[in-house]
Every structure is written in C-alpha cells, then in structure tokens.
C-alpha cells in the first residue's frame, strides 16, 4: 500500500521513463527493489498524509496514536 522511499535516489528514477518495459537495467533494479530488498531499518511514508511509519528489524510499525485513529 505505501511505496517505500529508499535512501539511494540514484538507483531508481522517481517515475518510470517512457519505454521502461524494454529498459533491461531499469527493470533489473526495479525487480531488486520490489522483490529482493528487505528494509530492516527505515520508514514508510504515506503519500497522502506524509506521515512516516518507522520500520524496525524488518517490521513496519503501523500503529496509529489515539488522536490519529
């Protein structure tokens, strides 16, 4: 549901460029990020609210506080 923002902006462009389906290098990096990368420490950011959810030891904490819920 929430797209991760990685601390390595050079790895992937913010959006897929035109003709990305044929861009082998891009596809390989995308595959790596989607299927092989596990975030152990970091955060997820909600694209709507901007609220950050911390990830610790590979498990994201998606609990909302009382006033957020």
């Amino acid at each position, binding site marked *: 549901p929430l797209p991760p923002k990685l601390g390595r902006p050079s790895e992937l462009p913010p959006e897929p460029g035109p003709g990305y389906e044929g861009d082998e290098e891009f596809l390989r990096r995308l595959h790596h990020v989607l299927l092989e990368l596990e975030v152990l420490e970091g955060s997820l950011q909600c694209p709507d609210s901007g609220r950050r959810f911390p990830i610790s*030891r*590979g*498990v994201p904490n*998606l609990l909302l506080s009382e006033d957020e819920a």
Partner: protein
Amino acid sequence: TGPPRGGRATRAPPGAMAAAPRGRFFCTAGRGLEPFVAREVRARLGATEVDCVSGKVFFRAAVGPGELRRLRSGERLFLLLKRRGPLPVCGNRGKMLHEIKSLVIEEPKYWLDIISVWRKLHGHEGKADGVSHSALVLKRKSEEETNIANKRQKTEQERAVVSEKCQVEAGETCVVPEGMSSQECWIESKPSSEFPSKGCGENPTANEQLSFSFRVSCRCSGAIARILTSQEIGRALGVALVQQCGWRADLRDPDLEIFVHLNDIHSVVGIPLFRLPLANRDYIKTAGLRSTVAWAMASLAEISAGALVLDPMCGLGTILLEAAKEWPEACYWGADISDSQLEGADENIRTADLMDKIELLKASVKALPLPSESFDSVISDIPFGKKFKMMNDAQLLPDILQEMERVLRVGGTLVLLLSAELRGRVAALASCAAGGSAQAPAVAGNSSSSAQGHGESLLSRLLGSLVPEGAYAVSLGKTDAFIHKYRKVSAAGDG
C-alpha cells in the same frame, strides 16, 4: 506444491516404501481433531478404511514413513497390531491380567515379523539401500540418541505409563510438554557388554534378539481402570514379554515400544512409528497455538495458489507458519501489537525459512492499515487472556470482527478460534442477525449501555454478511475452544 485439499486421493510418491500390502495404522488425535485427521489421511496418503473413534483415527495406507511423517493434524502415529472390542471386565485381577496378556503377548516369531515390517518401513528413509542389518541398528541408534534430547527424565515407574501424554479421551487430559529442554539430553554410553555385536559384523540377528530392548506403554480408562492400573498392566506385560521373547526391558530408550490402550470402546495394541509426536514441528522454534489446531484452522480456509492470507493477531505466527508450509503458493501477512510477540514470530519465520512468504506488521486488529476487501482469507486465534494479558473483554469483539470483515473480499473465508465464552456471544448475535439486522439493538436488548448496544448492532450487521460454514469443538489441552468458519457473502455496508 501442497497436497490437494478435500477428498481427492493421492498416489503414493515414487520410491516410497510401498510394501505392497497396505499397512494398517492409527493416529491419535486431540479431541475434536479426528475429522481433520480423517480428511488428511485420505487426501495426503490415499488412505482407505478410515475409521474415527474418540481420540483415534484408524486407516490403511501404502506409503512410506516420509509421507506418514508429514501428517499435520494428528498427535502420534502407530502401526496397528491389534484392535478388538473392549475386554470383558471381571472383578478378578488375576483373570483380567490373563485376558490382557492373551491379547498382547504372542510368539517371538510374531514380534520378529512386526519388527521387520517396522524396520522395512524405516530402513529406506533416505538412507542408502544395501546397508547391513547391524549398521541399520547402529544408525537408528544414533538417530534415537539425538532424539533423546527431547525426552523428559522421570522415574522409571512413571516412564512406563506416561510417555508423551498426547492423547485426549474421556477422563484424561491432553498434556504435551512444550519446549523440551536440550539440557535433558542424556546420551549415555551403554556398557559394551549389552551390545556386543555393534559394529563387529558378527551374527547380528542372534545378538539383536539377545540385546533387543522394549518398553510397554499402557493406558487404560473406563471399567478396566477400576480393577487395574496402567502401571500394573504395563509391568505384567513387560514381565511376560521378557519371559516369552528373552528381550530386555528398557524404559528409557527401547528399540521397540509397544503401546496398549484399553478402554470401554476398544482394546488397541500398536507400535509408534516415530519417536517424536507428529505435533512436534522441526520448523517451529517457539510454539504458540498448538500446531495441530493451527494447521486444522488453515485447512478450513481454502487457501489456493496466489491467495492473500492474513492473521491480524498473529502472536508467534503459528497459524501462518503451518499454512505457509502446507500451502506455499500463497502470500501470508501477520499483524500484532506486541513487540515481543513479533520478535518471536520473526525468529520463527527465519528458522522455518519462510521469509519470502510471510510479512509482518506491527498493527492493531482494531485499525488495520490494509485496504478493504484485499484478503482472500483471515485466520486468527482470538486470545482469551489465558496466556497473554491482551484482551479479556468480549466487548472488543465487535471492533475486531469489523476490521476482519472489512479487509476480507466477498467470497473470502474467515476462520477463528474462539473460547467458549466468546463463542456464546457470537452465536447469540448470529441468531439475531439472521432474524433481520436493522432491529438488532432492540432484539439484543438487555444491554444497559448504549456503547454495548452499538457494538451488538454492529456485530449483528457484520454477522449478516458473514455466513457460518462450520464449527468444530477442539481441545487445547487444559481448555476447550471452538473453530468457527465463515464466508463473507456481501459487504456489511450493503443491505
């Protein structure tokens, strides 16, 4: 891929020690799980002549120990030697013992045949063929020695009777020691005089007969138990076997265990096929819910390839582990609010090597950070405060059910484990819902607070969209619980 769901019979896998005649077996089962065992042996082993009684499932199958070991809903698996009606009970102890001995004791040749069947069943378990007989015994010995780490050391008296008390029947409780400590590993070096032939290549058969050790595990209940105790029977049988066959009684690490169960329903004699109960999973590091019950719940969820399955109160992840092992072609998600539970679940998942199958979230089941109608199945053990001081309040039930119902897609399955108390509430409200949900608050009427009334009307509406598809009473050892299955037939918001 996992085994077929439902009743389709499977062929024995190639290379299995089919031993052309179909062997007769029985599996002990926790109370309430017998139907699951029956279904599983049919589906997984192509079993025939499947017969359930309280606490046991008898069947015939032509498969090897590898496949047998994969049974997931049973407690222990035995080779069936004898199954008769209940023994006639008389007040005369001597006469009773005689009856029992007649049932169990046979000529040495009978036992040798049995042992050779048992060995054939085990001799090809992944080991090279053509291994010599005594080497087979040696190898089996070292397997057993590593398995000793899982035995508890009790007095010899108790050992004769207790073994793994994993069978539940009327008047007995199911207690399985959890977390067997590896400190209890007592690999003793036996005095060499006892096993003169080990590795010497001398006449193995004769020496095996001499050095062959056994133990009788007897369990009796009902009318017989009023005349004789399990210990007395076990002892008498042990003595008789020593006299008859010249074997050595070894209560700690016998070559052969003979299991005798006498009650008002039947008299059964069998030999356990494996040292450890089936319920012990080598892929689970820390068990939460009993693995057999967890597997049974997953088996009801109809998990198909590509399914998304959620346990929103996953605890140590037992249900997800059992499901992911059996139905690996699905995606599993677990959520919990407790850090320590999630850590345990994470460790379990790594130990089981299921990292790519199971995702964990720290989240509350009352506010799941998941899209509506996104899961094919929701499976959960709703904790009733027995182990964890989490939820002791049935008032949380409506919120929990609401979220579970929301994330479930129409046509999806919901499988819950409920305490008797929770179940009573759910059942009462389900009958209200069936009668027309709009008036539910009035019908469910004796609630004093409006909050509770709101909860109950919500529950009624929810239960209108969740159609019950089965309920199963199961024993969890000290307590009983109920597995409930529902199917979502419409979104709760609609009509």
